[in-house]
């Protein structure tokens, strides 16, 4: 749910990074946090848990400047990717305005990507949101493993698995190195602001 404060001329939107476990959602946020200046970013909050999985969420607020006199504030969240934490994922998805789906390019994660996207579709449907209506951007992460001896899926194959029906914008990425991270954020921010303003105009 976006919130528009007319006394400050400010719009707040919520963008959630979704995807299978260990796919790089938190790494995306960490890269953005490291690469941005203090004037743009707020404090990143990571709920401290043992190990490197996200058990609840990570949170990063950003101020993206102004559009037509309204200042745009975006809050980025990640969800836990592991299958068993679905209740937490639903909680974080509450009031979402835009989604980045971070897919894992590792060949062994092929099924997990499809499963996680289906799970997203279901969780959104439970909140009466159609996955085809809400802004969604795919990021095929870990492309930097291309030259290594770890087998990865081709971008064509990932498009076939995940984006054949949806036909949404997508980016190749390496969250660890920062490739595609800003491109993904730019695209989802653009889509989300458009979506929120369209919804507001139709009120």
């Amino acid at each position, binding site marked *: 749910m*976006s919130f528009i*404060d*007319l006394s400050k001329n400010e719009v707040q939107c*919520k963008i959630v990074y979704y995807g299978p476990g260990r796919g790089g959602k938190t790494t995306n946020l960490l890269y953005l946090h490291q690469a941005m200046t203090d004037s743009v970013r*707020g404090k990143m909050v990571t709920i401290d848990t043992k190990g490197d999985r996200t058990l609840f969420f990570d949170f990063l607020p950003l101020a993206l400047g102004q559009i037509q006199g309204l200042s745009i504030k975006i809050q980025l969240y990640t969800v836990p990717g592991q299958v068993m934490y679905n209740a937490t994922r639903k909680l974080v998805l*509450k009031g979402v305005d835009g989604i980045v789906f971070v897919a894992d390019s590792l060949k062994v994660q092929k099924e997990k990507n499809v499963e996680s996207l289906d799970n997203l579709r279901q969780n959104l449907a439970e909140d009466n949101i159609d996955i085809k209506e809400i802004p969604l951007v795919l990021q095929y992460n870990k492309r930097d493993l291309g030259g290594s001896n770890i087998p990865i899926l081709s971008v064509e194959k990932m498009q076939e698995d995940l984006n054949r029906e949806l036909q949404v914008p997508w980016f190749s990425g390496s969250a660890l190195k920062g490739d595609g991270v800003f491109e993904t954020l730019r695209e989802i921010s653009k889509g989300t602001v458009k979506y929120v303003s369209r919804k507001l105009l139709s009120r």
Partner: protein
Amino acid sequence: MDLVLSKESIDNIISVLDEDLLRAGADCVLLVDRSGNLIVNRGDPANLDVVALAALSAANFGATAEIAKLIGEDDFALLFHKGKNENIHFTKVGKGFILITLFGKDVSLGLIRLNTARVTDTLVPILGGEQ
């Protein structure tokens, strides 16, 4: 379900929070929605990251609502965390909002509870929510 608040509504919310909670001794009062957006914050939030507090409070409320469901409740109407010097009180406002009140050890919990109940009744119509 997006929320647009006019300057007038925001001013009304501010005056209710100032009058009923800050004057009763609360250090800081925040109104947030249940998806984590900060709507209004009042009082002296020196060194307090209010944006993070809003997001974490919404998550905290959501998590305890799941606990409520496990014991056959829909959710809990209020939560209270007690610290050594500072306490925090969360109250549900309508279906979609949370009122967060921070207060020190010299202020009575009973007074905060009484006043947040009154504030909640005033805020619901302004926020256009259901009781």
